[in-house]
């Protein structure tokens, strides 16, 4: 796009291609381009900077950090559709808190998927944190409740509850999440302090539906976008965040325990050009 220096129709088309192929979505791309056209850039270099500034400006209000000291124990529930990286992200989050000298507990409330509990147990062991679990097929709300009681009894700082992946179109599964929340709220209306929605950067426009339904059903309070170490740009995040006004706390950039970064609006915008 910036091979030539003059801004002509070819440049606008290349810009649209860049946005659409980054999963920004056709409507959001056209809104961004409309706003850029009004700004009368003199050459492609300033247009490129203008685009990065525009996207940064859209995302910066939502680039926030988790205020985990506001409650003790601080309870985080992690949700999202199947395979997006919930369990792995929980391990990374636990490390983030352990590094801040917090005592962390993991709640193995995915009692459905084969070896989900074993998977989380391995991470707990690697991190040296406690895990609360029950048998496979136990009631997830019961595990969530148990893990909260355990965390309070031990006077630990952070509880992170893993849940089974579920498609937002399955109302009975969304009900199950509501039940987990209600059970936590019985202990305190503050709980959970955060309901983190995990979005996968490789997914396309369906992430908008996911975010809408998860937010409407169980009030997602923050987003973590995973798999940004791949070639996907995660452009759908722009629409999700600006239309639902949910903060983005972190991004996942790999399969290892340290592959979690604080979300930075400008780096995300610059990522579109990589």
């Amino acid at each position, binding site marked *: 796009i910036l091979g030539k220096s003059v801004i002509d129709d070819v440049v606008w088309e290349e810009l649209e291609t860049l946005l659409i192929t980054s999963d920004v979505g056709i409507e959001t791309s056209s809104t961004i381009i409309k706003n850029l056209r009004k700004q009368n850039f003199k050459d492609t270099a300033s247009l490129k900077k203008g685009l990065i500034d525009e996207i940064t400006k859209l995302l910066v209000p939502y680039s926030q950090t988790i205020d985990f000291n506001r409650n003790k124990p601080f309870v985080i529930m992690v949700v999202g559709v199947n395979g*997006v990286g919930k369990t792995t992200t929980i391990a990374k989050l636990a490390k983030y808190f352990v590094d801040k000298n917090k005592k962390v507990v993991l709640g193995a409330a995915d009692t459905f998927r084969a*070896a989900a509990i074993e*998977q989380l147990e*391995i991470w707990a062991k690697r991190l040296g944190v406690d895990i609360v679990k029950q048998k496979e097929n136990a009631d997830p709300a019961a595990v969530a409740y148990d893990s909260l009681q355990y965390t309070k009894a031990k006077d630990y700082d952070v509880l992170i509850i893993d849940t089974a992946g579920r498609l937002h179109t399955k109302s009975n599964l969304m009900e199950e999440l509501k039940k987990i929340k209600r059970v936590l709220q019985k202990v305190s209306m503050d709980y959970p302090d955060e309901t983190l929605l995990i979005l996968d950067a*490789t997914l396309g426009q369906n992430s908008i539906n996911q975010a809408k339904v998860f937010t409407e059903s169980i009030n997602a309070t923050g987003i973590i976008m995973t798999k940004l170490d791949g070639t996907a740009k995660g452009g759908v995040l722009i629409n999700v965040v600006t239309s639902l006004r949910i903060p983005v706390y972190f991004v996942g950039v790999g399969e290892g325990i340290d592959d979690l970064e604080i979300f930075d609006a400008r780096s995300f915008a610059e990522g579109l050009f990589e």
Partner: protein
Amino acid sequence: TLTDKLGQVFKKLRGHGRITESNITEALREVRIALLEADVHLKVVKEFLERVKEKALGQEVLTSVTPAQQFIKIVADELVNVLGSYTSELDFSGKPPAVIMLVGLQGSGKTTQAAKLALFLRNKKRKPGLVCLDIYRPAAYDQLKKLSAQISVPFFEYEKPKDPLNIAKESLIFADKVGVDTLIFDTAGRLHIDQELMDELKALRNNIKINEVLLVVDSMIGQEALNVAEKFNQEVKLTGLILTKLDGDARGGAALSAKSVTGVPIKFIGVGEKLNALEVFHPHRMASRILG
């Protein structure tokens, strides 16, 4: 829906004799929007629209259907044409065991689909066996082992995981020993840009007689479906695709992108988390789903 939008576009066509370049531009624009919203790759959309335009131009406007219906039929037919026939034909040729290897990005549904395939084959009176070649993901082995037990399919057990090639070779001996005629290899999720892991797949392909290499693709995937399918195909030579999580509301445009760039058939679709949730691919259903 697209049909409603095209209905609006073609209101002006009533009374005209033919579909022409000028009256089709708006219609093509509506199809473009629909396909991009369905996550079909932009490049694939452009090529597709060119072919639709060619097919549509010069056609007599039929009196038995509305112009919108006629145009939609051209679009749907072309979609079905690209998506391919319904076939779940798997290659089992050669000296047993036949080997089916599942590959794909992290979290796409390989392990679950491996078990679903095993159940599918068992129901077809074959003797499948499951092999975990994922030595990285915590509890990957336990996950596949549990699924195997759920459907009473032999699972290749090993103690210390060496490397996937080693495990694969030993699983061939296991297959002979227990009378398994079809081995299903579950591999670790990997990025198409991770050369080391792509080489691992290449090594398997080059050293083991593998009958089918199926790319497992999450139907919710976005524009990258094109690059991912292309890269996996270049590195490991695919024989088919499996599109998963179609029990959701993703339009699944990835089907069109992946099929057009690789040319390999979509053999199955995953429509749920249970092990019986595997279906043969139906191009007509997929076409109307993509069009929305």
